[in-house]
């Protein structure tokens, strides 16, 4: 007789694993990475690879120092590095990815207990830290390469500031509220042919990745949908124009934030009801910062602020279980949030 296992039920389990989920996220980010690489060239890609390398090394060193098993095998450090890399302007100096990667992994993730314990999204927090510390570097964006030959891919960035430009959101901010400047058409913003961070210019590429994650059931649809539609709705409310609404949705870090950062497991709520409120909160703060605050970009701020409210949601909004009657809190929340979005958008776009 061989060795018999005596075990608590269930005796079978799904094929899903932490590693598999992280792999799916990496796959989902590939379209955005490829578009970014095409638009901004080899240097921009190498900065993202440097971010990933820094994240993985930081986690390894941290585990070595603490004399615990190395956890890089779950691929979560790679995901953090990749998302942070996609969040950076394309032509940052080499120390930016290094500082950002160390900050994200060591201070935001590992210090609080590693995977599943971080208090806020590591990539979003690192981006905000970098933004506050190196305002100039982190707000200098470049137009995509205008290819004249294959060598352009390798030769960018050109060593002058002549190519520096503002992002559509930056221009929007600089211009007066009545004279909105559309530097690009909405379609270009959707495809990604605009100035911006390495991986967040193409809403289409990010949307493809997002749909992949939803189809694979890695993330639910509620958080991204409420963030995107909610941002449009608040855009209508704050800007009074359909253009503001569209600008807020298509440009800047909205899609990468909605699909990849706000949905981070450890820092998003665990129940559907809380998720809806959390997502609406992100949409609100994003538009608030963009339209009224001092920065052109508000997504990272919004995500961090909503992240730190998650323990409150999880503590106070406990869904009614089977046999305890109708969950009125869930019903009212869903009707209120989706009703608000639908009515605002309807009024804004149709009337």
């Amino acid at each position: 007789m061989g060795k018999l296992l005596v075990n608590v039920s269930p005796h079978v389990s799904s094929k899903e694993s932490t590693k598999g989920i992280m792999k799916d996220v990496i796959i989902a980010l590939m379209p955005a990475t490829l578009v970014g690489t095409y638009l901004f060239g080899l240097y921009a890609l190498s900065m993202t690879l440097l971010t990933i390398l820094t994240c993985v090394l930081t986690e390894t060193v941290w585990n070595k120092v603490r004399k615990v098993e190395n956890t890089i095998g779950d691929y979560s450090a790679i995901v953090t590095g990749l998302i942070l890399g996609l969040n950076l302007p394309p032509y940052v100096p080499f120390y930016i990815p290094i500082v950002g990667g160390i900050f994200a992994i060591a201070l935001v993730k590992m210090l609080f207990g590693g995977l599943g314990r971080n208090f806020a999204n590591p990539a979003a927090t690192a981006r905000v830290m970098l933004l506050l510390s190196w305002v100039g570097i982190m707000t200098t964006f470049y137009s995509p390469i205008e290819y004249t030959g294959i060598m352009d891919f390798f030769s960018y960035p050109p060593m002058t500031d002549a190519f520096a430009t503002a992002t559509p959101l930056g221009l929007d901010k600089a211009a007066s509220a009545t004279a909105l400047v559309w530097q690009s058409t909405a379609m270009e913003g959707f495809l990604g042919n605009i100035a911006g961070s390495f991986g967040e210019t193409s809403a289409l590429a990010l949307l493809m990745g997002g749909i992949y994650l939803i189809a694979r059931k890695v993330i639910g649809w509620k958080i991204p949908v409420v963030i995107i539609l909610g941002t449009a709705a608040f855009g209508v409310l704050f800007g009074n124009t359909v253009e503001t609404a569209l600008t807020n949705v298509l440009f800047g870090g909205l899609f990468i934030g909605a699909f990849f950062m706000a949905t981070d497991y450890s820092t998003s709520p665990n129940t559907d009801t809380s998720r809806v409120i959390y997502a609406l909160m992100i949409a609100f703060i994003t538009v608030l910062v963009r339209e009224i605050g001092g920065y052109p970009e508000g997504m990272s701020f919004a995500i961090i602020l909503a992240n730190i409210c998650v323990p409150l949601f999880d503590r106070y909004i406990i869904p009614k279980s089977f046999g305890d009657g109708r969950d009125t809190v869930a019903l009212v929340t869903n009707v209120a949030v989706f009703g608000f979005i639908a009515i605002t958008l309807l009024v804004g776009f149709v009337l």
Partner: protein
Amino acid sequence: MSSFRKGVHPHDCKEMTSQKSIEKLISGEAAKVFIPISQFAGEKSDVLVQAGDVVTCGQCIAKATGKFGVDIHASISGTVVGVQKEITAVGSYVDCIVIEKNDDSGYIFMENIKSEESSDVITRIKEAGIIGMGGASFPTHFKLQVPADKVVDFLLINAAECEPYINCDNRLMIEQSIKCVEGARIVAKAVGVKKIVIGVEENKAEAIEALLTVPNTSSDIKDVESKVIILKLKTKYPQGAEKILIKAITSREVPTGKLPADVGCVVVNLHTTYQVFLAVRENRPLTERVVTVSGGALENPSNFIVPIGTLYEDLFAATKGDMDTVCEIISGGPMMGFTVFSTRIPVAKGTSSILFLTEKEIAKESSSVCINCGKCASVCPLKLMPMYMDSYSIEGDFETANKYGIMKCMECGCCSFACPAKRPLVQSIRLAKKALRKKGAR
């Protein structure tokens, strides 16, 4: 199609035995039977025989005591060796009547039933030794006595068989469809209800077809007043959990702490209704049951009809298993069954299947930290939050775990199944429940 919200889709693995007809275990292989005198629920029965007595199959060998107990019958003809303690599937010792087979092929039938009125049928069910055969082993006669203050209008026959691997109910429906449906009618009459719904998961298409060939059946719920409804349910685990099945079929939700009768339902397992038919119309007590013996370690997985008390090792030998490849032996299904550490365990009235699974089928992975993904909560059919119950249980803070409704958990295993970090959630939940029960929580 009727179903419930949430739940999981484990690979059903039914193909290994779904086409195998129910076979009689070849005599001689079961040279001895060990009949437990108390099943999972119910009081011990009074033993009527002693060592050296010669008994005939069907003979009553232990009489019921208490309101939950049922009679017990000799499952083979032979000589009583004695009463001895044996380990059962749940891991505890239980007194078993041991009978050594002889070559007498006789059978002692019960007397003809006086009438098919409620009280006579319920007495017959108790005297025929019938208890819930789906696994929980709740005494059927007790379940059918609905308190006078409760109005019941639905009899639901649980033929969902949502656990992977198991095919005993499936084969019974295919091979004995008339007896299954008639049994349901007898039970309905005893309970005093008109509406009968047999719920079958859609992966048992052949069984659904077979049941529909029985006269006066229908697949349309609108005919529920006049016909027996064969309702197709979505293949999803745990479709066959009692409260879940009620919700899926009638949309009624059993309130926390209440019983099915409080929402007008009585739920009976399909094998049990078949057994009721045999007891009432053929005067046969419960002496044998259908058991699916399956798993990757077996050369010839089968559905056997076996005498109660047959040892697992006899079934294992009959299916030509290779013990070197067995990783876990499971009594019941892989989602809620018990692992046993020996094959010297007798088949009880509630043993629907015995699985001999290989390492590959178990695919045991070590657990890692909770990544807070919320998958467990998103699959919990009772809408609980297993991740918090798990972490508070591990911290030893059982009171807080109780605030999250841990006592409501039915341990179906969906959370552990779905967990990408492979955390043994059910294990820590059980730990907390046990501690809380000691303190008087319910």
